[in-house]
């Protein structure tokens, strides 16, 4: 799991140091999740199919021991998908 973050440091005098793109910081984020996706596809031709899907996650991806003031984060999304068949054997 890779995170891209904004990283801010402020000291006692409220001087702020903003550091962007600190990749790899994953404290407080649960790295594992199990997602269930239901999908419908319609084949347009032999190789191409388009469809819609609904996806939901089972686990809270926020660690409440580290990020205390959070209600949690679970995956729920709706979208479209495209499938292209590269080859058949």
């Amino acid at each position: 799991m890779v995170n891209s973050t904004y990283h801010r440091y402020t000291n006692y005098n409220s001087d702020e140091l903003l550091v962007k793109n600190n990749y790899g910081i994953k404290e407080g984020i649960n790295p594992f999740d199990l997602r269930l996706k239901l999908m419908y596809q319609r084949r347009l031709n032999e190789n191409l199919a388009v469809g819609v899907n609904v996806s939901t996650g089972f686990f809270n991806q926020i660690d409440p021991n580290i990020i205390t003031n959070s209600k949690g984060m679970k995956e729920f999304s709706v979208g479209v998908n495209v499938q292209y068949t590269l080859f058949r054997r």
Partner: protein
Amino acid sequence: MNNWNDIEKKIVEDSEKLGMTFQEGYWDEMEHMLDENDEDIASAALYGSGGSSSGDEGLFQEEYWDEMSLILDKEDRRKRRALWLRWTFHAAAVLLLMFTVFNHNNSTVDISNSNQQLADSTQSSKENTAKTATASTAENLNKNNAPTPLNSIVKREEDQTAIKSELLTQNVLRKRNNSTPISSIKLEKSSKPEMSFQPEELSQQTSSLAALSLPTISLNSPEIVRSESLNGFKNKPRRNRMLPISLNLVASSNVALAPKGNISNQSRIGSNTSLGIELTKHQVNWSLSLGANFSHKTGLNHELLRTKATYGTRLYREHQSVEYKSIGSVGIPVGVNYHRKRDVFGIRLTPT
């Protein structure tokens, strides 16, 4: 050595000692020598490195250059011939390939056409054929004669009675014995037609067996495949739609509900895009898939807050906040699909 004059005088004395003074006689002599050698130098530049026209090694040898030009001409012709041969070979290979493809397409008769042919011949011979055909006829025929190739029937279009009878027996056999469907038989144009029976014999056998009042099948019976059903073969593609294994490129773009996080400016929606590949194993109406994908999720609305006290000349309190913008994850989707004509219903379970 107090002034510049003393220095100059000293330099002149030293140069005279070394013989570096300009001596006009020396340079006149040198110029004369160079003039004499001009011709030699020019010939050396033209004919070789010998630099002297008196020796044989620097002379222009016409035979040598004739021989070299002959060799060069020969090489040039050889190169041109090789180039021509190469292009000819390529053209021949392309022609051969085209001919092979064309010949292959011609030699394999599309079964839909043959079915259409059979259906047409069946319709045209409706008046001339007998109205019944027995199943035992088919069994007898099968026992007495070798399996009849279908192409022999196609070739004998003129004998409509034989075609009709054979069609009926084939249909009955297919229904009863659950044998190979007609669509799976591939006909070859080049194969020599062999008639293992004579049409007259068949008609005699049919009439004689019909006279035994054996169970009959009417033309309206559902066991008889109508010509419309035969026409259905034409619409079927030659390739099977369900093939055993396929490799798919899958991309999805989703709109996600952003969670209620702990930052001040929260976004309501996020996105989740993924790209991956799936290997799918097909069954009749079902398929199993296994793959790998990378998904990128935004709209997290969370930050990590930390406060740290630092002691120096005075007490510093350092606040650290890390705002999570996006998460990238790698998943292994495992799924099941149900295929219904062109529609596919699927379910995926993706551990990330």
